[in-house]
């Protein structure tokens, strides 16, 4: 059964295979990075700014305000990483509206990669903020007995991040495919609207959870 884009292999050379998921991810990267480079090539301050520039400004300001409200101190330091997470997942899920498109986040490889990047980023930011000893000391935090539980909770929340995003996107695509064989038009349209909504919500959830983990890790040296 066709679960995700991983099964469509475009090009194979010995050990390396290029499947549709990777191609679509590259296309999304080109869209996001290239589009932003084009827009920010000519920035202007002043009263009249182009609508694309104001669109980008709205995005950045909204995300910064959200990060601040969730309780992340100094959100500007973590804005590039967290906003990139949100924008990549949101664009990948929003482009489902294009016919014939398979979201790369419907493949466990992509979501596992994103979850692993969060797993690596949280200690890195924590150590950059408060030093190695203080960060490691936070693992012993309520009592020393909690050390294995803290480690297990780190691993399990990474796994939960990956599976949550994968399950939501894959199930949306699969329900759509199954319904298309049953009823022609009405139900599949409604399910795709629901799929778009859950795609946006899941992008928001992924980045908010990453924010909460980073906020918890960088709060170790407080007053």
């Amino acid at each position, binding site marked *: *059964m066709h*679960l995700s884009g991983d099964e469509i292999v475009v090009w194979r050379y010995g050990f390396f295979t290029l499947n549709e998921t990777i191609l679509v991810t590259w296309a999304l990267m080109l869209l996001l990075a290239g589009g932003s480079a084009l827009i920010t090539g000519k920035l202007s301050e002043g009263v009249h700014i182009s609508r694309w520039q104001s669109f980008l400004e709205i995005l950045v300001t909204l995300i910064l305000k959200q990060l601040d*409200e*969730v309780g992340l101190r100094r959100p500007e330091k973590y804005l590039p990483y967290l906003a990139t997470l949100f924008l990549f997942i949101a664009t990948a899920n929003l482009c489902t509206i294009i016919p014939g498109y398979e979201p790369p986040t419907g493949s466990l490889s992509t979501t596992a990669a994103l979850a692993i990047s969060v797993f690596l980023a949280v200690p890195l930011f924590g150590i950059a903020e408060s030093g190695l000893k203080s960060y490691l000391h936070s693992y012993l935090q309520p009592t020393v007995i909690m050390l294995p539980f803290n480690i297990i909770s780190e691993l399990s929340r990474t796994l*939960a991040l990956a*599976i*949550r995003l*994968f*399950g*939501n996107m*894959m*199930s949306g695509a699969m329900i759509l495919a199954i319904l298309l064989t049953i009823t022609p038009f009405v139900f599949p349209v409604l399910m795709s609207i629901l799929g778009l909504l859950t795609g946006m*919500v*899941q992008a*928001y*959830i992924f980045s*908010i*959870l990453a924010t909460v983990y980073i906020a918890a890790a960088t709060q170790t040296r407080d007053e």
Partner: protein
Amino acid sequence: MDLVSIVALASIITAGLTTSIGCIGPALGEGRAVASALMSLAQQPDAAPTITRTLFVGLAMIESVAIYCFVISMILIFANPFWNHVIAQAGGH
């Protein structure tokens, strides 16, 4: 009954039961979460952004449990290692 039938029977029954029983708990939990969010929205309407955001984060966490059950069902139906092993053995005979 031979081994192939037993593995098939167990996989099918377990796949059905996993999703059906596993979605009861999260559905009840999400209902309670939304109910208490609505009550607190009615009590304090100007805290609406915070309440809504916390509600969505909480709903996503509860939903993950249902998704775990769904993934197990999918694995049992489409990527079942026991089935593959048993079929490979039966094919090798």
